[in-house]
């Protein structure tokens, strides 16, 4: 579904998503916003689109080439046509193809007339005028309201086409709007549905059966941001630590701030700091006070947090840093996705300053990933970086809601007493140091960024001590228990495809297609980047060939080579776009057949 940024495409898309999920299909979605707040209406730069992929079987990605495109204006058509394959169906809002609009989109002539759309199934629907007609008799509805409701008309058409339940959407409309707007939206939606049913234009209604393979449980749709917010709140509830979230707005990370800022009811404290340095420092200061300190940002902000993260390494206090990766160095392409902060997360601090790094692999998995990041931070008294990205943060999928009671326990295990002088840099079996928070009588102590003596934590310039502390800090991180890497597919396949982060679904989908075509390919996915699972090296060596696809220039491949001396092959894509299943399929075949 594509239209002008003012056309409400994201709204229509998410309504369709909900209806689809509740219907019981598996799905994945991908919104695509323009970079400008309000790019000039009607231009290609101003197009906002929402892609959804759903089926009765396990859906892994938002799909690569859509089967149906809804184009609300010429610019939307122009921007999205390259994504389609011949044969796809295009529903256009015919009313929007005025000469002016056509030119504004950069077409010389109307693409509806000049053969541009040859090979596609084109359905011309005068959506604007049909919407207007449907609502014009309603009390108090202005023509502006009518204009604004055409996204719901389109939604109605689509809902009919795919036989989605209408009640979910109607309930949502009545819950969300009031008065004339409610009436207009309802009328538009119903008009769209009826148009589908009655018009001869649309000849085939598509039935997508419910997905019968899914695990039993209660589900909801979440995007990565929502799942992350829930995961953090869950970690706060389960650990008993107040959540203090310090952040400075930055696309695409700000949405997490927005989501958490609303959660006063769960005791969440968010602070919009003056900058990213302060945001990280506030989270760290809160951690000193016994809170679950969390900060979230994107590339440029991660740069700025570097020094504070190093301080956290030295203080050995829990801190969760979430990096929602976006494309490019410097300001780059803030509204596009990439996975190019991996080496920075691992090594981007001065001195030897090791810390655990995790990555989220799907929207729903963000919950688990951030919960695990918090658990590690608290258990091991260490900053942890969780790598997410714009793609995983914004796309959504059905999520099987866990039971609070069944979540792994998190025990902050505060030190409250001491026999003899309190030694803040002694260690437990995990090599974690005691966490004694202000307010605890008798355990007053001072910590800071200078090197400290093993045990006492006093300032120390002793060389041997520094070597020992350096090793202890590294051993602590590398000793974190992480689950073994699992192979999906045959253990003796000809090729292993190893990914990390948000490409999980794409790689699985690509490999599935190859397997369906008879190719012998296995996949595995890294969720822990430091430390890596203990069996990683052994697994890599088991396969003749290992392909490592990433949305960067080969950062994980580099790291695997260094750690395991295995000649992995890198497939790097740096286009600000997620990997596509078809692309993976092709790359896998290319390797299998060479």
């Amino acid at each position, binding site marked *: 579904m594509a239209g002008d940024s003012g056309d409400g495409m994201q709204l229509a898309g998410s309504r369709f998503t909900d209806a689809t999920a509740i219907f019981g299909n598996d799905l994945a979605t991908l919104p695509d916003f323009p970079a400008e707040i309000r790019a000039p209406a009607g231009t290609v730069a101003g197009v906002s689109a929402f892609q959804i992929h759903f089926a009765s079987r396990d859906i892994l990605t938002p799909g690569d080439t859509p089967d149906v495109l809804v184009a609300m204006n010429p610019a939307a058509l122009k921007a999205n046509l390259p994504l389609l394959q011949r044969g796809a169906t295009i529903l256009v809002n015919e009313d929007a193809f005025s000469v002016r609009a056509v030119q504004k989109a950069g077409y010389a002539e109307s693409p509806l007339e000049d053969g541009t759309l040859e090979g596609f199934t084109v359905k011309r629907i005068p959506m604007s005028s049909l919407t207007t007609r449907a609502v014009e008799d309603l009390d108090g509805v202005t023509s502006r309201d009518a204009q604004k409701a055409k996204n719901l008309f389109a939604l109605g058409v689509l809902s009919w086409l795919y036989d989605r339940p209408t009640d979910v959407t109607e309930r949502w409309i009545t819950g969300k709007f009031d008065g004339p707007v409610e009436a207009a939206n309802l009328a538009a939606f119903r008009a769209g549905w009826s148009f589908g049913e009655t018009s001869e234009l649309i000849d085939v209604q598509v039935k997508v059966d419910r997905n019968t393979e899914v695990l039993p*449980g209660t589900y909801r749709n979440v995007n990565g941001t929502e799942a992350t917010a829930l995961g953090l709140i869950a970690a706060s509830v389960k650990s008993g630590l107040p959540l203090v979230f310090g952040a400075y707005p930055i696309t695409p990370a700000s949405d997490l701030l927005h989501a958490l800022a609303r959660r006063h009811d769960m005791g969440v*404290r968010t602070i919009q700091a*003056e900058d990213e340095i302060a945001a990280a420092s506030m989270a760290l200061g809160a951690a000193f006070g016994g809170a679950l300190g969390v900060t979230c940002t994107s590339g440029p902000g991660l740069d700025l947090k570097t020094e504070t993260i190093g301080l956290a390494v030295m203080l050995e206090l829990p801190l969760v840093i979430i990096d929602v990766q976006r494309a490019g160095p410097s300001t780059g392409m803030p509204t596009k996705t990439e996975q190019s902060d991996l080496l920075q997360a691992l090594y981007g601090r001065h001195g030897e300053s090791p810390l655990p790094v995790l990555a989220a692999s799907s929207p729903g998995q963000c919950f688990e990933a951030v919960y695990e990041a918090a658990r590690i931070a608290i258990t091991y008294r260490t900053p942890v970086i969780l790598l997410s990205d714009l793609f995983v943060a914004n796309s959504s999928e059905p999520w099987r809601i866990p039971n609070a009671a069944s979540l792994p326990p998190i025990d902050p295990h505060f030190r409250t007493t001491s026999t003899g002088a309190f030694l803040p840099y002694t260690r437990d079996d995990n090599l974690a140091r005691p966490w004694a928070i202000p307010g605890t009588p008798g355990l007053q102590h001072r910590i800071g960024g200078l090197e400290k003596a093993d045990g006492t934590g006093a300032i120390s310039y002793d060389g041997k001590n520094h070597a020992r502390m350096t090793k202890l800090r590294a051993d602590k991180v590398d000793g974190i228990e992480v689950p073994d890497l699992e192979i999906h597919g045959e253990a003796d396949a000809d090729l292993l495809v190893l990914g990390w982060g948000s490409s999980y679904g794409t790689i699985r989908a690509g490999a599935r297609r190859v397997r369906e075509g008879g190719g012998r390919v296995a996949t595995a996915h890294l969720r822990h980047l430091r430390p890596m699972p203990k069996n990683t090296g052994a697994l890599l060596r088991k396969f003749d060939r290992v392909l490592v696809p990433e949305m960067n220039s080969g950062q994980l491949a580099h790291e695997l080579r260094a750690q395991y001396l295995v000649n992995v092959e890198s497939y790097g894509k740096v286009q600000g776009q997620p990997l596509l299943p078809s692309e993976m399929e092709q790359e896998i075949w290319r390797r299998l057949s060479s």
Partner: protein
Amino acid sequence: MAATEQLTKADFQSNQETRWCPGCGDYAVLAAVQSFFPELGIPPERIVFVSGIGCAGRFAYYMDTYGMHGIHGRGPALATGLASARDDLSIWVVTGDGDALSIGGNHLIHALRRNVPVKILLFNNQIYGLTKGQASPTSELGKVTKSTPFGSIDAPFNPLSLAIGAEATFVARTIDTDKQHLPAVLRAAAAHEGAALVEIYQNCPVFNDGAFDALRDKKRGEVNRIYLEHGEPIRGVVRDADGALRLGSGGAPVVHDAHREDPAFAFALSRLSSSPDGPTPIGIFRDVRRPVSGSDLTAELAAARAGADDAALDALMRSGDTWTIS
């Protein structure tokens, strides 16, 4: 642990050896603070000293309270985070003129505008001590230092003017060696509900000796110190025909009002001396009430947290449209 009523100076002395240069003004401040703190009646475990980097920053190690020696300039941000998590602590930030006004300038002004409940002690020695003698943002024009061998070309900040311009609710100035005045100012800062900025003129005998002699010297100090006392006339300060404050005689004496809502008065006072080598106001320039950042919120969130159990979490996770597959 000493019970609150019996606290003494010794309860605030940590076992760390002090490592400042002989004669450093920091010793005097440390002694004054350690002597004063028992009076607050707050047990040491509920006090936190947060500091940045610099000679002054070492202060945190010497107080037998909780302490966090942070990174350069970020003390106010660390303290803001701590204050947001805990409203049961007495939080003090120790910072230098470089730490607070150069690299940390932004955090300082934001902590002040937010009125975060932390007390900021700015040790102003008009030089970078720890890095061995470069110009600081309070070094006077023309000052020759290692980094400005031909004299500094940058006009200095007046820390109090800056703080007042940043919406500070409590602004004061005192002197390292003044054993009466310094605790009196700290007392008022501690009593203030929001953010308090206390500038302490601190002598650095190694890299900037004598910078404050005009005020520290017993004899010159008597002449040059203009004590500000709320409700009292300010010695030597009069109003011009056009309403401006100035030093001198020939005009009605000005009565000090630290509680004036409009900061313009405190600002005008801060401009009376541009550098501490002549008559200079000392004391509390401004002390007004304004809602303290998040003070209600902290209690509200604590209450919410008390109810945030597994059931609440389950309800939250299950909010919105859900469906069940069995």
